[in-house]
């Protein structure tokens, strides 16, 4: 179990992590969601002992990453955001190196990485630099797992990876979870939130919500209308200046529209748009998802 309490980290005057308190439960797949620059990497690095917090307290099964960093490093498997294996070494050499450095062998923990490693094993004599993005990611995950860590810390593992590989990767994480490994994964992709047990939404160093994806969505509490018309761009600017508009933003092929009060309905929005000469107006009710929650939460804070 991981407890982060009132943790802060400043770089100059920028608060990278600002008074963050969250808990990650044992055996959980925990998602840290947020756009680039939200402070996710800094927070993860404080958890895995690579960065000292300015303030606050972090505990991993009772270990403090500041004082007990040696023990903490023993129980963590870490995959940094940047591909950080040796591009001039082959797949096998990389894996062997990390196994030896962590005081184990590939054979000893093969069962743990088997599902992942088997996919890249046919290319084991290929230098890591010549692998595709998805294969690099599988290798990096294998290397992070080879010493059977208690906690797996993954920093944006799916950034820059194609959609199919992303899907596969999340399936691998689900499989690892069943082996009792606690996983913290950061991602800028909101659609990945539903694959996590619990998520924390982070922006500008602050956590705006921390719950199961369903609860986060349930807490949204406002009605969203999806609005579409011929000239979407003009529609967006027109809706932005409307006195009944709380917020409007493009989301897929629709504009997501949130009204200031509940009696603004489909009819009144249509009437407003027609009065401004819009054509082919299509308005539907939309169920909020994590992205809507995220936009709402970061806007109101």
């Amino acid at each position, binding site marked *: 179990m991981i407890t982060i309490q009132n943790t802060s980290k400043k770089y100059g005057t920028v608060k990278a992590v600002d008074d963050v308190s969250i808990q990650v439960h044992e055996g959980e797949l925990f998602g840290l969601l947020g756009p680039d620059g939200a402070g996710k990497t800094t927070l993860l690095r404080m958890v895995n002992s*690579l960065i000292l917090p300015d303030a606050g307290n972090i505990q991993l099964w009772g270990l403090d990453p500041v004082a007990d960093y040696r023990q903490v*490093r023993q129980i963590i498997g870490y995959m940094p955001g940047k591909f*950080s294996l040796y591009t001039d*070494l082959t797949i096998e050499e990389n894996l062997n*190196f990390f196994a030896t*450095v962590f005081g184990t062998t590939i054979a000893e923990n093969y069962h743990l990485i088997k599902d992942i490693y088997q996919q890249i094993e046919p290319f084991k004599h290929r230098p890591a630099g010549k692998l595709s993005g998805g294969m690099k990611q599988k290798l990096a995950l294998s290397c992070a797992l080879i010493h059977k860590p208690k906690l797996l810390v993954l920093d944006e593992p799916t950034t820059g990876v194609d959609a199919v590989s992303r899907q596969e990767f999340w399936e691998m994480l689900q499989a690892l979870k069943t082996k009792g490994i606690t996983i913290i994964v950061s991602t800028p992709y909101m659609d990945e939130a539903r694959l996590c047990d619990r998520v924390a939404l982070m922006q500008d160093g602050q956590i705006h919500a921390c719950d199961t994806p369903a609860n986060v969505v349930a807490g949204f509490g406002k009605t969203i209308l999806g609005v579409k018309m011929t000239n979407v761009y003009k529609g967006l600017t027109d809706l932005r200046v409307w006195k009944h508009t709380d917020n409007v933003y493009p989301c897929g092929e629709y504009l997501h529209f949130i009204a200031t009060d509940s009696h603004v309905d489909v009819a009144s929005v249509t009437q407003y748009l027609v009065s401004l000469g819009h054509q082919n107006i299509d308005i539907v009710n939309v169920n909020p998802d994590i992205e809507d929650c995220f936009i709402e939460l970061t806007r109101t804070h």
Partner: protein
Amino acid sequence: MKRFTAFVRKEFLHIFRDSRTMLILFAMPVVQILIFGFVITTEISDASIAILDKSKNEMTREITAKLASSGYYNIKHLLHSENEIEAAFKRDRVKMVVVFEPQFSKRFYADKQASVQLIADASDANSARILTNYAEGIITSYQNSKNSDVGAVAKPIETQVRMFYNENLDGVFMSVPGIMAMILMLVSAMMTSISITKEKEFGSMEVLLISPLKPFQIILGKVTPYILLAFVNVLTILAMGYWVFHVPIRGSLFLLLGESMLFTLLALSLGIFISTVAQNQMVAMFMSMFALMLPTILLSGFIYPVENMPYVLQLISHLMPPKWFIIIVKSVMLKGNGIMYVWKETLILMSFTLLFVGLSIKKFQVRLK
């Protein structure tokens, strides 16, 4: 231990798989010693000269023959009048013109005073000085032999010059110690600082820090291959110096190798120190270049003698570790001295090493910034 050997193995793989690194490590020392040995040389051989002989008698012909047979000069032109001197310098690019006055031997025997004028192209001041010095020497010894022939008293004071430790004033004797210092600096300091900062730049240092490897294991694993490679380089340079340029090794070979290893350690500790300060390979390379290579070449007495520098630069040169190493190498290789004569310099190198190791340990981060 298993961890450590795995690390060293990985380092060797990095080195052997990168052709550029291999080139720097193994081709450069050879190329450099050849270049410095053959090109940067203060020796004169076959310099083109012209003779304007206005007396044309046996004596002037003998002197001319002596100049020609010395090996230093190549007589390109025989001039007929003063007007041709300028053209000889400009068009024919001769380096020196020797002018004998008319009635040379008559004046030598009758007046006891005959003049030879040496006109040198001093646009290259150094070679002009050397050319005229050598010519003066040849003419003086000729004069002495003539004086004794006719039973005349030689000049009351006769200077006899002998160049100890390097009889022929071979420039390569100077170059070998300097090149050793330079190559060891390059291989040890620059290559280690680059290879450590490379891990920082590519992010693998993050993973290494997270691993159970202790900082000293990471550092030691990084430098071990370079200790071995630097040793190979020392042997290469000494062998090339000995067999290609006939630079003698008069002192103990073991002492020489020992001092070289000490200097390698010093350079490695400098490299480690640089890597703790520099955040990426570019910075590490520039720091090594400007902080190490240039001073090694300019301020260590490798090319320019320290004694002729302004006082301030002389003081700075004391802080240049290569200076002390070059003194040691010259002393052991050329003079055949033992440790008794170089213990002070050795001690200085040791102190530098300890200083940089200490600083590096202090600066090495077990965390990221």
